């Protein structure tokens, strides 16, 4: 489903991704762990073409992200085509980026109505179902500024799910959630995986990784240090760096 090959990305002189190779199979949940600043968010952003890579290649569902290949040439895609690709990819940002001037309900229905051309009534019904699922049924009419941190995060998750994307990118989707809600989000993710949605989840919660992941990827300083099934990576890490990192879990 997702293939990341030799991806490099620098900000100024600082190389944040230093040759990332990663493969994510359809319907699998890949959890990315790693210390702060190791490039996890940046990697997710390149998959959604919010950052252009400096070199390397990313394909989603066999299609290059942001480019079209023909012979030995790569043609840059027009914005419209990139946007079409993006409706297939849901993104939950680390700091949510909710639309502050729209109500919770409008935040969620905006994309289905305008990007997928769903009838509004249908989108609203779907949004209410989603809100129910994340425990925010009664906040449909509230503005994001009036929500608690955890409530905002759940709206962000609902917003991404509303597009029913084939691929979901979660950047720390449970950072503001209490243990009960983490459990609920975990259920949602497992549900989605069962329905065939592919997911990449960046998280700091090892417990979450253990429960949710088919594959765990450990990144450090812009490279993938180790990857494999959670039982292997989390319990019998081969790399010294991974071991050091995991030993700090409280």
């Amino acid at each position, binding site marked *: 489903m997702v293939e990341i090959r030799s991806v490099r990305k620098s900000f100024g002189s600082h190389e944040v991704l230093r040759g990332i190779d990663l493969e994510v199979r359809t319907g699998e949940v890949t959890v990315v762990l790693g210390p702060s600043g190791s490039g996890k968010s940046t990697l997710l952003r390149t998959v959604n073409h919010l950052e252009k890579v400096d070199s390397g290649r990313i394909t989603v569902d066999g299609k290059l992200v942001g480019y079209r290949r023909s012979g030995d040439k790569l043609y840059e895609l027009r914005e419209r085509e990139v946007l079409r690709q993006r409706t297939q990819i849901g*993104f939950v940002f680390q700091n949510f980026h909710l639309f502050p001037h*729209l109500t919770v309900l409008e935040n969620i229905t905006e994309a289905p109505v305008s990007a997928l051309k769903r009838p509004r009534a249908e989108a609203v019904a779907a949004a209410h179902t989603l809100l129910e699922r994340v425990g925010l049924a009664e906040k449909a009419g509230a503005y994001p500024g009036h929500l608690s941190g955890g409530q905002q995060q759940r709206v962000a998750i609902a917003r991404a799910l509303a597009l029913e994307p084939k691929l979901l990118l979660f950047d720390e989707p449970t950072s503001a959630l209490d243990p009960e809600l983490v459990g609920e989000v975990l259920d949602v993710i497992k549900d989605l995986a069962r329905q065939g949605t592919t997911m990449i989840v960046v998280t700091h919660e090892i417990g979450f990784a253990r429960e949710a992941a088919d594959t765990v990827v450990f990144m450090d300083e812009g490279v993938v240090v180790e990857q494999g099934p959670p039982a292997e990576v989390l319990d019998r890490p081969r790399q010294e760096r991974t071991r050091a990192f995991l030993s700090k879990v409280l």
Partner: protein
Amino acid sequence: MPPTPPAAPAPSPTGEAPAAPVLTKEAEPAPPRVVPVRRTGQWAAAAVVLLLLAMAVNSVVRNEAFQWGVVAEYFTTPAVLRGLGLTLWLTALVMALGFVLGTLLAVARMSANPVLKSVSWGYIWFFRSTPVLVQLLFWINIGALYPQLGLGIPFGPEFLTVKTVNLLGPLTVALIGLTLHEAAYAAEVVRGGLLSVDRGQTEAAQSLGLGRWRRLRRIVLPQAMRAIVPPAGNMLIGTLKGTSIVSVIAVQDLLHSVQLVYHRTYQVIPLLLVATLWYALVTTVLTAGQHYVERYYGRSERDR
């Protein structure tokens, strides 16, 4: 998790008075009274302001130099009302068209397309550089400058030529000239607003697959409006009064129509008062309108 379940444990026996800030302590019988910060200075200042205002109003109303009789006489004469009508009509059109064009220019200026970017830059530069008087005179005198406009191969032969005299009447010239000018300024106001919106908002909208225009119309502009409305209000009121420049090309707006009278009768002060009162009236209405527009765009913050 419903936030206010019907029967939740309430560990404190305090009475229910959530609205008024009544402070209580469990052990004490009566809660202490809250005294707001003493604002003696504030009240004194308010009194002084009101007194000064009363004096100013009094001196205006009773001052003979203002000749209120003459003011009343001319306040609703047909010529003045016609001028007012023209001013309002022109302001509304110029503002609406100017802001539509200005928004397009602002978006072009901020786009990645270098051609759009420089055309927009050039437009803004040119129309901000040239005094509006000169622009109006240019359009009205286009007959002298370009006796004929030709359609044909650039620097080559022409197929079709049009005599330009009388191509544009004074009203059309006023409308075109002011609109083109306004658009350059509106573009900068809109751009200022767009710059104030966090980039994360655009990224979020992109990641949801929203198209360029939808993003602008639905996500970025509404948030930019908080910063746009106050200077746009300035521009609206500025345009209201600025339209009087069209008198140079024989279009009679409000100010010009009172000027015509006092040039004839030399009663300068009362006639300027007529115009001022009308301007103040319209401005008041517009200011009230601005207030409601601001409230609309600030609605997500209001009860916070």
